């Protein structure tokens, strides 16, 4: 097998537009709008949150072969998951990536968590929206531009894809050294606003 080539991407904090509607949803507003006082505080949090975002990602392309209805070989690991095997049908390559908004997010949430629970909930929602928006940008723009049609991103923990696979995934990407993402003993990613996922590249029809 050839070596996996790991590429890193770092984007300035104004390169990602945080989806505010999503952020409100994470804060628990659903379809409702915050009142004026809350809206003002949310806008203030959004500015502070944006300022500390430090978007980084590392990724590699790996071969994919779906062996049967529950086994998928990714060359660096074999995944036992029916939902994943089904999802990867029609792909002979995939992008493995890890992405993060950086440690500044945890610092800001942590600070507010001690000082203002309202702002903690707000920034938490904003950063969750930020990592999602960043992943969308990676997949919809950067990866699609390079590799063509993609399946939606699939992370350990989705369906019956085992969560511990995350450890292998981050290890093969050298994510700790490349972008500072690591795992706690309880398989929580740090910085917490991080994502690791596999994106199938849809085979081009001949």
């Amino acid at each position, binding site marked *: *097998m*050839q*070596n*996996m*080539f*790991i*590429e890193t991407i*770092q984007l300035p904090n104004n390169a990602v537009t945080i989806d505010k509607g999503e952020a409100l949803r994470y*804060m*628990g*507003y659903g379809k*409702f709008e*915050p*009142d004026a*006082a*809350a809206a003002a*505080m*949310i806008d203030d949090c959004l500015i502070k949150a944006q300022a500390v975002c*430090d978007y*980084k990602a590392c990724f*590699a392309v790996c071969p994919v072969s779906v062996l049967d209805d529950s086994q998928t070989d990714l*060359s*660096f*690991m074999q995944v036992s998951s029916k939902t994943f095997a089904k999802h990867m049908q029609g792909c002979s390559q995939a992008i493995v990536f890890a992405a993060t908004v*950086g*440690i*500044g997010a*945890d*610092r800001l*949430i*942590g*600070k507010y*968590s*001690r*000082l*203002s*629970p*309202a702002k*903690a*909930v*707000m920034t*938490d929602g904003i950063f969750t929206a930020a990592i999602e928006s960043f992943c969308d940008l990676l997949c919809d723009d950067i990866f699609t531009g390079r590799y063509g049609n993609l399946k939606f991103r699939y992370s350990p923990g989705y369906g019956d894809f085992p*969560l511990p696979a995350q450890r*292998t995934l981050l*290890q*093969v990407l050298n994510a*700790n*050294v490349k*972008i*500072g993402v*690591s*795992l*706690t*003993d*309880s*398989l*929580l990613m*740090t*910085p*917490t606003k991080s994502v690791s996922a596999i994106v199938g590249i849809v085979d081009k029809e001949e």
Partner: protein
Amino acid sequence: MKITDQLKQGYLLFDGGMGTLLQKQGLKPGELPETWNITHKQTIIEMHKAYYQAGSDVISTNTFGANRLKFTGKDGTYSVEEIIGAAMDNAVCARAQMPKDRERYIALDVGPCGKLLKPLGDLDFEDAVELFAQMIRCGAEHGADLILIETMNDAYETKAAVLAAKENCDLPVFVTNVYDESGKLMTGADPAAMVALLEGLGVDALGLNCSLGPDKMLPIVRELCGCASVPVIANPNAGLPHVQNGQTEYDIDADAFAGFMAQIAAAGATVLGGCCGTTPAYIEKLKTALQTVSFAAIQPKNRTVVSSFTHAVAFEKRPVLIGERINPTGKSRFKQALRENDLDYILNEGVAQQEKGVDILDVNVGLPEIDEPSMMRQAVLGLQSVCDLPLQIDTSDVAAMESAMRIYNGKPLVNSVNGKAESMHAIFPLVKKYGGVVIGLTLDESGIPKTAEGRLQIVEKIYATAKTYGIEKKDIIIDPLAMAISSDTKAAVETLKTVRAVTETYKGKTSLGVSNISFGLPNREFITSSFFVMAMENGLSAAIMNPHSMEMMKAYHSFCALAGLDENCKSYIDFATGLSAQIQVSGGVKAKLQDVENPLQKAIVKGLKEQAAVCTEELLKTHGALEIIDCEIIPALDIVGKGFEEKTVFLPQLLMSAEAAKAAFETVRKTMPANDAKKGKIVLATVHGDIHDIGKNIVKVLLQNYGYEVLDLGKDVPPQVVCDAVVQNHIRLAGLSALMTTTVPAMEETIKRIRKAAPDCKVVVGGAVMTKSYAQMIGADRYAKDAMETVRYAESIFGGKDVEA
């Protein structure tokens, strides 16, 4: 020749990349490269030899990740000792095959452990120290010549590794960090902060490696060389990687690399090598290129500097402000917070002072009846999680001092040492070991000399004694002691004389706790602020002061503007214009109060914190405290709480109201006796393994609103700690939070222990993964889907409003 001597005389060449070469030899993705020390011995030996032959003076062992997290020695895996033993053997074997024409060194390579330290991650600082210590002991036993701590992207982890090296061997310690293109570490430290931290810890050389090519490193090397007094190391990558014919290639070739490295050498770095993508060919070209760049040893910078985990603060022309408010002396509310272990109160004091513009926070939590070392540790850790200012560790308890200096993430200011032999012999070893700038008080066994001459004798004694411990004058700030002029009218004159003499004659730095000067006089701020200006005019480098005092801030900003220390008068203008805006706002709030019915209730419902506090103050002029609580605050909370339960009010707004209510309570509290009765005491904790605590904090603020005392144990709390707290405090209700399925077993274990030790204590659980049936399964008494439900459950247990808040 010793490597530390060689550092002074010429360039020292490191080796280049290891990982990329091993991949070319067949190392598989995800395979641990360190196992090759045993499985591919000869390959490793040849690689070391190739670097020696190319001109490397130092080769680093293949032990980057050889720590106990990766090598447990269990289940057929190798142990740390096996891997490092083999790696050292390989290096020694390679060196033995070289001609004896010059010195060749072996560095024990120590990389990051792959986990983030608490509080942002789950690895304890002391566990990190011990993990590195094991590697270092092993390398030292097998004959390493130096320790190379490299590729560190977190200042805190770097400190843990350096401490481990200092405590477990006598070898020279070299450290390189990873900076990104913005010139910072992943955890936010800039080059000046790293220089302060690392020089404080006594490393022999420092610098950067990996991540960037030599071209991108150049500006960071310049910054490092601009503030470092020890040799600077640069081990860049061979530029950026790309794939070519299925192989990873780098875009800067050996010739171009050598060209950039000559510029890096000209910028002042003297320890040079490569990282990812570089090969022996790169080192060979580098060696040739260096022949055209004349060597100049780095010069001592003599800067007095402290640091936080993000930045350094230097004591130069502009006087440094040290916020004095985190100190219980004379503050009953603060003392109460300390006794109740109410850390949030202290953290708020810290953040409020930062907003007023101080550079450093003084931290004094001394109270006879509390465990000061433990409290100091908690306060330092807490402050580090809410603000990025350097801290001044202020205590007379040497144990508290050491425990705080050890876990401090940076180079602290230490308050204080004095001219007494006992004090110097206790404090100087700590400053030498952990790094720090120490405040030296001009008093000794015979007290405080009345005259400047007498104090200067003590200054000389402090400087001289520090020197015997290897502490330079730059790391001492003299405090010539401001004494009350009400008892001695000459007091200020002598102090100012001492400030000037230390500045001019000794070229030293000074600091004063300025407010003492006005003790015993009316309207103290008039005197204090004038004295402050006089002291600054006499050369004062720093002041411990109250940033909430308008007179003091006016004096400070005006002085800086007048003394030419404020470019374009920018700080002054910001300060002065910000001030008039502030006055207008608070005036506006008061004016509005007149036209609204139940203004406090409305402020709380709307979640307006400042307004709630102002309303309460106004109401207190005409109403009793209990009346305000019962007729205004509680009804407002009920309105919002019901709205939340009926889904017309959303979580952020519920919390804004809770905070506004808290502000109102704080204001009311000022008028009530210190020990106001509580409904009951509740323990809260996020369970072991879980580092999320937003949910728990939400529950906490609401419970406090409803009059309960909350013993908050924090996050990632071991089961036994929760259990002990329940037993010791005779707790009737404990709340546990878990966010991840992986931490539910820890919750179950915690409940089991509580059941056994305190069968009468009820346990309520909550968190993202919890459900009613899950809660039953693990033996909880109650599942609460949100904070309001927890409050209702608490009300049912403690029997409602039998005692006022």
